[in-house]
């Protein structure tokens, strides 16, 4: 054992020496400091970027949102689609030296389903039991068929941590041990997270950097400046208004992907809802008074996608049957007249970011041209979110990160029991269509169900979707292999430094 360690150390030294005097470090600028580095409790987008390097998942998505193998190499459903059998990759070890096997999968799923602080409970609730039939085969048994399961396993719910290291959530988050290409080295809160290359990674040939350093740089302008100064190799969420600067700079490259996220004007239909709550006519009038393309052009230099649906056009489940309506101020004025409320007032609450403030002011201007009196209420983020969660708003600019599968977005917002259904929307017709979508596995049947869902919510308008952000990563031009998928995550597999 000791001898092998020494050989390993020598080999590592030899590799480092041969690849040049300096270890190659990839410095990535993140907008936010991730929260917990335990996939069971993590709740931030920035955290998901770090997890890609740290923790492998059972399955992954590709650029077209199709499910592809990662720790599971193949899988199949039983006939009534209530049991999913997965074959696991052999020769995978965790960062702490433990072996990855079917028992580890069982332990992980059960940990995420039962641990007190787990945020994955509702995602994994359809799984009734997990069984390790042999070392590399695992069977998930469901209470009823649940189409989004594989898609859920492409995110944190599918990330496998070392069961030996995961005895307590706090201790694990301080020193996480997964099976990803990089292992945890250090973390300075609100400053940086450092990972080092995991030599025993199953796909080590595809990993070209020795270290990854995530620097927390909240300001988009500063991220760009540091990228331009060569102080970062990659930076996430570049501001749409800065893209021209990146495109004009021969030393930098821009990587984009249509996003899954959506920004929408969430309408409270409950007791705090004001004039819009009682009148679908007024909600349609508001929608018709807005020109989404102008919002996209003015606030985002036309770089985002203006759209009227919660599911982005890049997804197969975007409905073509209900296209984005053109702005029609006259029709909006007619609808206001029909509603019997001569000069409706609405108040838009939003988190006080400059982008949301800009969108809110554009909406205010456009809606006022149709006859709405629009008040704006910008609030500091935590008080805004508190009001949102308590249903204490008339309209709220919601920013939802979206998921690869349509179900988590649509059921959460429009299902009677949805966790984001904070505006009091109830529709039996909607619940039935959502149920149809999540229980049928046939793509065509699901597509039909989600077309119906789109019809219903665009008729009832419990929310007015505005646009889908696009993911923008900036990088040094020489770096090869960066490809951003619609989930907006930077994947380090295949990313290579400039060849000198």
């Amino acid at each position: 054992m000791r001898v092998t360690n020494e050989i390993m150390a020598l080999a590592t030294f030899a590799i480092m020496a041969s690849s040049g005097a300096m270890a190659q470090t990839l410095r990535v600028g993140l907008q936010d400091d991730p929260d917990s580095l335990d996939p069971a409790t993590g709740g931030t987008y920035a955290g998901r970027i770090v997890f890609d390097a740290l923790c492998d998942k059972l399955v992954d998505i590709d650029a077209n949102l199709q499910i592809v193998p990662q720790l599971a190499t193949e899988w199949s459903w039983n006939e009534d689609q209530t049991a999913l059998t997965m074959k696991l990759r052999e020769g995978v070890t965790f960062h702490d030296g433990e072996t990855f096997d079917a028992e580890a999968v069982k332990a992980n799923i059960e940990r995420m389903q039962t641990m007190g602080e787990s945020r994955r409970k509702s995602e994994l609730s359809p799984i009734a039991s997990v069984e390790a039939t042999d070392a590399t085969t695992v069977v998930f048994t469901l209470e009823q068929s649940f189409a989004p399961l594989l898609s859920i396993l492409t995110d944190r719910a599918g990330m496998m941590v070392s069961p030996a290291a995961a005895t307590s959530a706090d201790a694990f988050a301080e020193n996480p041990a997964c099976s990803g290409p990089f292992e945890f080295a250090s973390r300075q809160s609100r400053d940086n997270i450092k990972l080092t290359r995991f030599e025993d990674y199953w796909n080590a040939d595809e990993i070209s950097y020795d270290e990854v350093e995530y620097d927390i740089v909240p300001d988009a302008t500063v991220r760009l400046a540091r990228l331009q100064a060569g102080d970062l190799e990659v930076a996430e969420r570049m501001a749409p208004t800065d893209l021209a600067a990146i495109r004009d700079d021969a030393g930098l490259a821009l990587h984009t992907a249509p996003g899954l996220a959506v920004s929408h004007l969430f309408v409270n239909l409950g007791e705090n809802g004001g004039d819009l709550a009682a009148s679908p006519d007024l909600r349609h009038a508001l929608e018709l008074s807005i020109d989404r393309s102008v919002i996209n052009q003015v606030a985002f230099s036309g770089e985002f996608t203006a759209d009227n649906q919660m599911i982005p056009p890049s997804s197969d489940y975007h409905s073509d049957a209900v296209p984005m309506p053109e702005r029609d101020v006259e029709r909006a004025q007619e609808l206001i007249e029909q509603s019997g409320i001569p000069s409706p007032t609405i108040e838009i609450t939003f988190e006080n970011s400059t982008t949301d403030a800009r969108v809110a002011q554009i909406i205010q201007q456009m809606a006022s041209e149709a006859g709405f009196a629009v008040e704006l209420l910008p609030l500091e983020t935590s008080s805004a979110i508190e009001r949102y969660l308590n249903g204490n708003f008339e309209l709220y600019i919601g920013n939802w990160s979206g998921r690869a599968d349509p179900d988590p977005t649509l059921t959460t917002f429009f299902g009677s029991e949805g966790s984001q259904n904070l505006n009091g929307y109830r529709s039996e017709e909607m619940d039935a269509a959502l149920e149809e979508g999540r229980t049928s596995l046939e793509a065509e049947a699901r597509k039909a169900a989600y077309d119906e869902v789109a019809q219903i919510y665009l008729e009832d308008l419990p929310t007015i979707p505005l646009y889908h952000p696009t993911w923008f990563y900036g990088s040094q031009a020489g770096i090869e292999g960066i490809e951003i998928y619609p989930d907006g995550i930077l994947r380090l597999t295949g990313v290579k430094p400039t060849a000198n």
Partner: protein
Amino acid sequence: MNTATDMSGPRRRSGTSMALRRALTQPGVKIGGTIVVFFVLVAILAPLIAPYGPTEPDWMAIRQPPSAAHWFGTDDLGRDVLSRVIYGARSSLAAGITAAVIALVFGVPLGLIAGYFGGLVDMVISRCTDALLACPFLVLAIALAAFLGPSLQNAMIAIGISAMPIFIRLTRGQVISVKQEDYVTAVRAQGLGDGAIIISHILPNVVAPIVVQMTITMAVAVLAEASLAFLGLGQRPPAPSWGSMLDIARQFLVEAPWMAVWPGLAIVVIVLGFNLLGDGLNDALNPRDD
């Protein structure tokens, strides 16, 4: 008109008005006063002199550099920066003046009471003042504004309350020294009531430093309003305020610097104006400093 036997104030009061006349000859007061009067006129005449409406967007002309049509350029929503700076003078001056008046109206009487009566009343008022002063001015204003919610009115109240302790302390100190004067003892011996003594004999003799403090507070309040607006705790959008204009401009410093330059310059100039005015008045009203 003043005789040696009449020691009850008017002698001093006329000293103050002479000092005010002397103040007007101070270059600092002249320049500072001109700047302040200029901005006051701009604020009052905003609808007449602004070439566009302050919230009137032009979607086709976003972030345009200064031109004949838009002297100061346009902002991120295609609004005319010149018009927004002109209208922004309203919220800055309103905040500066209202906050200083709030501080004055509440601070001076409390200082008079604490200084004149002393004892337990003084103790309670002074300890509360100390507690407020323990918190840095801007931090207190931010905390109060966040608590009250974002609006120009609440920002004014927050700044006014934060600026109040300095008035209490200043007035109290002045009153303690003035109330020892012979003429106060004299009128008290004549049997004049406390209220009458405070209003007719003490207040007029402590007014000079308060006037100076008032101008300085206005400068500080204008800055504080800009800071609160910058943090999103002031004027609600889309109404313009120099601070919120700077907050938005910050993202476009490289590609649209004109968005930041003009409101920034306006803040610098008006604060300079108030400070010059305050300094000049201080020199004129405190001949002992000469």
